[in-house]
Structures are given as structure tokens and as C-alpha cells.
């Protein structure tokens, strides 16, 4: 445990005192951790650790490339106007549409980052223009993306948890919906309903101007790449028996290729440069977390953390899980699910494992909003144009707490919840 605290202290020092980028600071903390643990120059482990999140890195790079292509081709602006035009009369209808819209990519890919970077970027200006502060908008987008990541049909943390205890990934849908929908709705309405209502009262509509006249055929046509990507992701998830999953990065690349004809030729190179610049800091964070996690496992600090958590008395274990898992999720939601989630789930065998596993995945997922890395928060900050991602955390905190308390309630009452949802085990 001392090694872990020392590594965290080094990270804090490098980030807040030397002002190094978080990715570099995490990487250096991991590297120095191997010296603390007595392994010295552990080049093999450092390089291996860099590949812990190789697939998510590819998703982030390609998602950003696709997003920038949509932005440069004018598709994002058009879609924003379109969505607004048809939900402008009712703030509640607008918010419900946005909850679905913002959660969908996460639910389909199992990644909060994919949601923030796609629909999050689309929705951000809508909220900001209608009176929601930049910080609250970022927090809202990040939280809904996280709830989307935990929502069915695809929840990667719970799949990893299930894999760790040899439980098939079936029958999770109802409990995951129950865990994510209420806090998602509370978050959306709690944060945005007030400003939207005020805007509606002032202007009589959520629309700035009548946008319908400006919808042209070429704008409708520019939706084609986005439509193809959405349909493909939807179809591979809904009909996995018939459609081959070529992988989310390949789908985004495919979408980028389709969108190139819609980008003015003078902006094409710039699009790629913008995507590269946006993705580099994120890649650095993911590489850094990987090295940090590898070192934790290598020097035995990970085991110390898990055992210390499990030494809590069984009745207190859910509370321990609700505290420790999000904090560990700050490094990686997937890491939290596999490293802490699996032993905790094993410790709670006897309750309804599906409900317990689903609740634990929510705790792990909320780690995507926890400093020092706060992946969803970091991406959301980028999307809304807020330089300091920590500014997004404060408005998000009450809703993170609501998510955790809701998860705890479900966890404590796993048996009752399973009966309520008609789940037989």
C-alpha cells in the first residue's frame, strides 16, 4: 500500500507542481513505481503496459477523426439544427430525446468516450446556446455517456466481470436499465430542465430562428456517413448472428472515408491535423494509465489494494465497493471491474449475481468521471471547449453521488430487485 501511495504522490507532484501533462505524469509514476518496487529498469513491463488500452486508443483516434470530418463537412451543425427544430416546443421532450441521443453510442459500444466524442459533441452547442453553462454542459454529456456505457445492450465492464466468475453475459438487460435510466433522467432534468424552461419562457420556443428554410438537399445528403455508421453499429449489436463486427475503429474509419467528399477540399488536410492534435493527449493518458496499472500489478500493490478492500466486514463491503471502485475506475473503469469487481462479486456470491455484477459495473463506470484521469470528463471538457476538466467535476458531483447511492440501494436489495424484475436465478 505504501508503494501505491508513493506512486500517487509522485503523480500529484508531477501534475500539480511540475504541471506535466497527465499522460506523461502517469507514465513517469509507473516508471518510478518499478524502482520503488525494486524492479529497476523494467523495460519489458513498461512497454507491455503501454498496450493495456491499445484497442480503446484506436477507438478514440478514429472516433475523433470521424467527428472532425463531420464537423468540417457541416454535418454536425445541420444535425444540431434538425434535432432542435423537431423538439423545440417542449423542454421535456427535448431532454428525453437528448438522454436517448447521448446514451446511445455508449450503450452500443460500451465506451463512454465514444459517446462523448460523437453525440456529445453534437449536443453540446444546443445546451450552451440555451443557457446551460459550459461546465454543466460538459458534466451532463460526460455523465450521460457513462450511464450509456453501463446501459444495455453492451456493457464491457460487466462482461469482464462475468468473464471473471465464469458467468454468461445473459439476462443483464433489465438490471442494467434499472441502474442507469433513473440516475440518467435525474441528471438530465436536474441539470438542464431549469435553464431550458427559462429559455422557453423567454423566447416561446427553444429555437433561435426558423431553421427549416435552410435545410437543403446537400445538407440532408451529408447525413449519409453518420447514418451509415449509426446503422452499422446498431445492426452489428442487434443482429450479431448475421452481420460481422469489423470493430468500432474500422466503422469510424469507414465513416470518415464516406464523409471526405462532403468536406471542402481546402479543409481536408486540416481535418486530419485537428483530429491528430485532439487525440494525442488522450492517447498519452491511456498509455500512461496502462503503464501505471502494469506497475501496480508487477510490484504487488494491486493485490494489497484488493485485499485491503476485501478485509472490510461483509455488510460494509458494498459501501467499500462504492468508494474504492470509482476511485480505481479513475485509472480505468475496465481495470476496476476486473481487478476489484471480480473478487468483490465473488465475496458476495449468494445474492443475485447478475444484479450485483450490474451494480458493480456502475461503480466502476463512474470512475470515468473521477480525477486524476476522469476520461469522460476529459473528453467532455474538450468537446465543450473547457480547458480545465476539473471544472466539470464539481457540477457533476451531486449526480455522481446519486448514481452511487442508487447503485448501493440496488446492490443491498439485489434479491428484491431480481424478484421485482422477474429475474429467476
Amino acid at each position, binding site marked *: 500500500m505504501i508503494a501505491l501511495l508513493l506512486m500517487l504522490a509522485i503523480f500529484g507532484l508531477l501534475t500539480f507542481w511540475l504541471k506535466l501533462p497527465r499522460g506523461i505524469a502517469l507514465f513517469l509514476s509507473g516508471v518510478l513505481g518499478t524502482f520503488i518496487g525494486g524492479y529497476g529498469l523494467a523495460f519489458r513491463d513498461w*512497454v*507491455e*503496459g503501454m498496450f493495456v488500452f*491499445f484497442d480503446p486508443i484506436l477507438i478514440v483516434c478514429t472516433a475523433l477523426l470521424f467527428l472532425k470530418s463531420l464537423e468540417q463537412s457541416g454535418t454536425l451543425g445541420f444535425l444540431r439544427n434538425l434535432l432542435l427544430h423537431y423538439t423545440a416546443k417542449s423542454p421535456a421532450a427535448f431532454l428525453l430525446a437528448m438522454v436517448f441521443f447521448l446514451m446511445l453510442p455508449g450503450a452500443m459500444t460500451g465506451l463512454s468516450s465514444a459517446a462523448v466524442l460523437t453525440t456529445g459533441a453534437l449536443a453540446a452547442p444546443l445546451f450552451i446556446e440555451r443557457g446551460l453553462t459550459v461546465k454543466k454542459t460538459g458534466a451532463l454529456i460526460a455523465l450521460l455517456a457513462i450511464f450509456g456505457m453501463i446501459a444495455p445492450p453492451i456493457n464491457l465492464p460487466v462482461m*469482464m466481470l462475468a468473464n471473471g466468475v465464469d458467468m454468461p*453475459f445473459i439476462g443483464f438487460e433489465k438490471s442494467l436499465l434499472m441502474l442507469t435510466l433513473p440516475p440518467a433522467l435525474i441528471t438530465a432534468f436536474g441539470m438542464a430542465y431549469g435553464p431550458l424552461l427559462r429559455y422557453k419562457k423567454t423566447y416561446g420556443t427553444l429555437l433561435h430562428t426558423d431553421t427549416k428554410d435552410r435545410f437543403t438537399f446537400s445538407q440532408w445528403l451529408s447525413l449519409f456517413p453518420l447514418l451509415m455508421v449509426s446503422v452499422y453499429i446498431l445492426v452489428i449489436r442487434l443482429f450479431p448472428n448475421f452481420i460481422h463486427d469489423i470493430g468500432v475503429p474500422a466503422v469510424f474509419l469507414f465513416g470518415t472515408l464516406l464523409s471526405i467528399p462532403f468536406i471542402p477540399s481546402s479543409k481536408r488536410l486540416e481535418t486530419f491535423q485537428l483530429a491528430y492534435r485532439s487525440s494525442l493527449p488522450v492517447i498519452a493518458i491511456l498509455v500512461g494509465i496502462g503503464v501505471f496499472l502494469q506497475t501496480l500489478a*508487477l510490484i504487488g500493490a494491486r493485490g494489497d489494494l484488493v*485485499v485491503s478492500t476485501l478485509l472490510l466486514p461483509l455488510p460494509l463491503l458494498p459501501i467499500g465497493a462504492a468508494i474504492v471502485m470509482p476511485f480505481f475506475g479513475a485509472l480505468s473503469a475496465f481495470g476496476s471491474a476486473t481487478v476489484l469487481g471480480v*473478487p468483490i462479486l465473488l465475496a458476495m456470491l449468494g445474492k443475485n449475481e447478475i444484479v450485483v455484477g450490474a451494480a458493480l459495473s456502475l461503480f466502476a463506470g463512474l470512475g470515468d468521471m473521477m480525477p486524476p484521469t476522469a476520461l469522460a470528463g476529459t473528453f467532455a471538457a474538450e468537446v465543450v471547449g473547457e480547458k480545465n476538466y476539473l471544472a466539470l467535476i464539481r457540477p457533476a458531483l451531486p449526480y455522481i453521488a446519486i448514481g452511487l447511492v442508487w447503485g448501493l440501494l440496488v446492490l443491498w436489495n439485489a434479491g428484491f430487485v431480481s424478484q421485482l424484475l422477474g429475474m429467476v436465478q
Partner: protein
Amino acid sequence: MKRETLIGLIYLIVCLLFTALGGYPLYLQRQHHPIPVEKVFGKRHMLSDWASWLKGSRGDTDVFILEGSESGGAILILGGTHPDEPASFVSSLIALNTIQVEKGRVFIIPRANASGFTATEPGEGHPAFYTIPLPNGNQMKIQFGSRLTNPLDQWPTPDVQPHKPSGQLLSVKDLRNLNRCFPGDSCGLFTERVAAGITKLIRDEKIGLTIDLHEASLEYPVINALVAHEKGLEIASEALLELEMEDLHYSFEPSPKKLRGLTHRELGDHTETVPFLIETANVAQGRLRGRTTHEMITKGIDAAYFKAVATGLLKVPYDQNGIPLEVRCGRHLSAVIQLTHAYNLAHPSEKILFTGLPTYTELTQSSVGEYLK
């Protein structure tokens, strides 16, 4: 030179340095190392002799056939389905070194997932190799490996894909886990193709008894256990009784019908073989473990697990003596002996008779290295 260019150059040099110094050991780890046995009593084949689709691929693996002078039944011992479970591979090596078949045929695949031996799981901090001391003072160097297929051999893997033929959804990790991909698909993903190869061997060679050797972490509920398909219940009960007589306790687990892709379920459903899976206790793969050292792997000693005894979550007794390879391989091999005896009783016309395989008592009174010389 501009300041930015200089900084860029420094970063580039550092990156190249990391690539070279970190990449070289990873490159060495990626090589297929020969099975470390000096003398094999039987014939050495490759899995591609049955499964042509694996020829020349990194999924192809050694298959050893040890034949008796009399014809009889056939047994398959699967080692290394999960390469990071050392007692599985080492037990199959001991079998290769010691077994003498009198009747029937014994098939041994020490590295069922050969690809998995060529990588370790990023984020786990596992060593690339571990060593076992031999009586002549030398050390046998063995690849530690990963539970999953090397991503360099199967990439990209879909995030989710249905298991064939059940349709149950498998996650990206399951799809690289050989023991989730049975009965396999000769045209499917790399791991599915390997599974299909093993299934074809079992069908073509009319293997009557298949024993898949595994290990599990100490907090995992299915540990020191025997998992049996429903068609092997009688054999399992008989074998468990005999093992009890040797003071070896195994929990009995019927193969769940809802959890697809595992050897004990799919090989039983899709071939004529009677499949069993045996689990021993391995601290090196648990999430509660401290630093993974050679000692932890071979002697099963770990301070973090000793501390974890207080959690009450460990499913097997654990003390400072650890759970060494001698105990784990001994349990595996005694179970193989007793399952074969019980199989012979149930199938008198397909008897498999062999000698030489060390029992639990023999192994724990000597050392694993003694049987690997």
C-alpha cells in the same frame, strides 16, 4: 536547430530506446519454444495433421501419441488450454516424460493454445518465463504465457460475437479464450480454428476420454474441483471415491448447460468423448496476489494471499507453505489415473492401461524437476 525540433528529436530517441529495450524481450517471448522434453516414448505429430486449416499457422501445436502394444481405447490429456496455469502444462510434460502405455493410446497436447504461450496479458505484470530446478543443477525455462490467445495472432477481435453454434454472446476476451470457443469453427476466428482442430482430432481418433487440466485462483468457487459433463457422472463419482481413499478431496461440479464454449460442455455435446475438467489452486493468477515471482509460480507462496486468509474468501486452505507445483501437478496426475481407471470400468471394451505416471504422493515426496529430467 529550433527548440521544438530538438525536443521532438529527444522524444523520438527516447521512444526508439523504449521500443528497442522493451521490444526485444517481447520479441523473444513471441517465439514458439520447443517442448522441453529430451525423450518421448511415442510419436510426435502436429495438430494440423488432423486440422489442415492450422498448417503453417501459429495455432498449430504439438500432439504426442503414446501407443500400447495392445489395441484399446484412447484418452486425450489437454495441457495449456490456459497457458498462465502452469500446473496444466507441467503436468502434461510429466506425463510425456513418464507414461508407458500398455493398452490403447494416450494423446497429449501440452500447449493446447500455443499462441497464448507467446504473450503475457498486458496489465498483469506476469514474467515472460519461469524456471523449474532440475536434479542435475540446471534450470528448465518455461514460457509463462497468457490466459488468452496472443493478440498478434488474433486481432482485431470483435467486441461481441455469438458463440457457435449456441448463439450465446461472447465478449472480446472470451473470443480469445480457447476454453470459450469449443467446439470451434474451422473458418472462424483464430482461437475458434484451434478449438475446431482439437475437436476434429477427438472425432477422427475416436477419443473416448478427454481430460482438460486447469488452475484457478484461490478465491474462485470452482477450485480443487472436477467438472464433468452429464455423460461422465458415473465415471466422475467412481474416480472421486478413489481419490478420497488417497485423501485427495475434490469438489464435484456438473458442467453448466448455460455456460457455452467450455471443453466439458461442448466436447461432450458435440463429440463421442466423455470430457472432464480438473482445477487446482494457483496463486499466480489471482487478483489478490502480490508481486508475481518465479517462487510464487512454482512454490505457490504469496504474502498477499496469506493476508487474504483473514477475508474468509479463499475457497481452499492456505498457509505460509504455499501450494507448490508438486501438490498441483500431483492432484492433476492422480485424478488422470483415477478417471482412466473409472473409464475402464465403464467401458471395458475400450480399456486404456498405462504405468509410470507419478501419483500425488510420489510427486509431493520428491520434486517436479525429478520427473522432467
